[in-house]
């Protein structure tokens, strides 16, 4: 069997995500309530949404890669390496070493740059354009925040709704599992998982997923227990509606607002956690956290090198702020008290 190369896998996943996003957008626009909520959200947090959209677009550009098309004289990449749109945009911009923003000479030594004045955030120790590195960090952040949530949330739903609805031994098992996981301080569990599985992007994502599904699982379980006791659910069961359909058509839609709120709030928490992991040495390659970790020493140099820290720190801060702002507004808009009666 042919080994699937990582970049093809990444392309496929990206495509699926785009299709999935389009599908969700279409179903949302059909329901009046969600449409109104979306409009309210846009009115209130236009700027933040645009910012998040910008990050997502950059992340998307960095997720689609293909081989070939590299100019002959490009020295900083392997001839057969898959390159993304972002990679290609910055092809050939590598310098020798540090340079400050918009400088025309190297920081140490003062020899002339290959592309003077064209690095808005300067270059790092290997001469790579810092703006380029920051843009690549966007994809990493979205991967950590978004993809992990997309795995953790369905997991939490399956276990939580299952436990809440069907009860019995399964519920006991799930409850014990949640309690055990919840009794370990998150960061310690993260460390344990990553050290056990070995460092690397996949381990970090799995570890983050395992630590974050617990809180949401608890929530869905509690909500399902409540929803199960509602009169119309009893009625449906009395009418002989199969359990699975009840869950799908009556329980899940009433959890929808919680899912959205949790997704957005989980996102920023995950990205910030990864930054901490990066400082501990067990983060994801290419993340802003890792860049900030690297930039720590640069501050104690004389004269100080600050542009690495600025670019990565600002990128991280702006994304988290925007997501938090949108998340707050989403939580207000989807407040159960303003939503319709359960269907």
């Amino acid at each position: 069997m042919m080994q699937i190369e990582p970049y093809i896998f990444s392309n496929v996943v990206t495509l699926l995500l785009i299709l999935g996003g389009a599908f969700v957008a279409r179903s949302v626009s059909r329901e009046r309530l969600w449409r109104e909520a979306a409009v309210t959200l846009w009115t209130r947090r236009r700027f933040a949404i645009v910012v998040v959209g910008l990050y997502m677009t950059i992340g998307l550009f960095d997720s689609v890669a293909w081989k070939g098309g590299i100019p002959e004289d490009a020295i900083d990449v392997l001839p057969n390496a898959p390159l993304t749109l972002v990679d290609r945009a910055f092809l050939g911009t590598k310098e020798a070493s540090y340079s400050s923003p918009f400088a025309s000479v190297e920081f140490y030594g003062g020899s002339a740059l290959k592309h003077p004045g064209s690095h808005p955030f300067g270059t790092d120790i290997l001469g790579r354009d810092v703006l380029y590195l920051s843009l690549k960090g966007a994809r990493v952040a979205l991967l950590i925040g978004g993809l992990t949530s997309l795995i953790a949330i369905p997991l939490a739903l399956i276990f939580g709704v299952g436990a809440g609805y069907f009860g019995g031994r399964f519920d006991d098992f799930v409850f014990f599992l949640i309690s055990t996981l919840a009794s370990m301080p998150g960061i310690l569990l993260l460390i344990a998982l990553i050290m056990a599985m070995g460092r690397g992007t996949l381990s970090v994502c799995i570890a983050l997923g395992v630590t974050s599904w617990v809180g949401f699982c608890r929530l869905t379980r509690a909500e399902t227990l409540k929803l199960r006791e509602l009169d119309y659910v009893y009625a449906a069961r009395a009418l002989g509606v199969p359990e699975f359909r009840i869950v799908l058509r009556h329980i899940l839609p009433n959890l929808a607002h919680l899912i959205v709120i949790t997704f957005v709030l989980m996102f920023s928490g995950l990205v910030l956690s990864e930054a901490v992991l990066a400082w501990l040495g067990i983060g994801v390659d290419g993340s802003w956290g890792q860049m900030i970790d690297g930039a720590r020493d640069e501050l104690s140099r004389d004269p100080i090198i600050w542009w690495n820290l600025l670019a990565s720190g600002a990128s991280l801060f702006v994304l988290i702020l925007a997501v938090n702002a949108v998340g707050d507004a989403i939580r207000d808009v989807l407040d159960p008290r303003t939503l319709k009666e359960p269907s």
Partner: protein
Amino acid sequence: MGAYVIRRLAYGVGVIVGVLFLLFLLFFTVTQPDDIARRALGEKVSVEVIEQWKVNHGYDRPLWPWQDWDDNLLFEHYRRMLTFDFGVSDADDSPIIDRIRAGVGPSLSLTVPLLVLGILGGIPLSLLVAFFRETYIDRTGVFLCVLAMSVSIILYIVGAQYLIGKVLRWYPISGFDADLLMLPRFLALPIIVGLLSGIGGDVRFYRTVFLEESTRDFIRTARAKGASEPRIMTHHVLRNALIPILTRVVLAIPFLFTGALLLEAFFGIPGLGSMTFDAIQANDFSTLRTMVFIGSLAFVLGQIATDLSYGLVDPRVRFE
């Protein structure tokens, strides 16, 4: 109430059993002893050296009880962890328990003031913001909180070390001195950073709690009785808000591990967090195992203490 205490403790014990099992899975099955040995010794050592290392560190026995009831790593793991017989570090063969004893003091000297100051500062601030609800004071406060929450703690550390340590030179960038006179100087920066990174989330949470309690029916009754707004805040809202606030304080305990981990590591405080950090760098699995266990134990105890203390704050619980 007595039955409740016993039930709660029993459940705590059950959870610890679960945690230890998970740790066993992670550190003995997901990572194979061979891998641990290789990480400690290096990739290119011979098989004999690995086997010898495994014997020395007790990894050579069978894993599961059904393989050998009398001598298996699972039971050994449980026995040793529960008797606090932690053995030696995989990295430098030093006794773990000694290092723990040495590290508890410095850790507490950082985390306890941090927790106390966080509460002492956070609650009055949020009361203030909640009192002026819907005014610009409230809105500015919330905005500042979201802003503060969006800054990663790592940025706070870098910023504080640079600005306050290097530029302003108010406090040393890192280091530790157990001498009581010198201690505050070394703890100042990490405590400032810890407070800054936590205050946004704290104030926003407390504010939500206060606002929720403020809209309850019995507050309307108090107003109809002729009570003044400040009195309502302090006598009615605050007393009811203590219940969710207590939960939050417990949830702050693991943060003491996160924050303490980073703060200790990067401010040079030789506590338990620093120990954990070193263990990560050195791939020291036995120390890591122990630290995760200790952390979880402390957390479980904290949760139990909180549950039991609900009886103090909420009379409805007392009569379970």
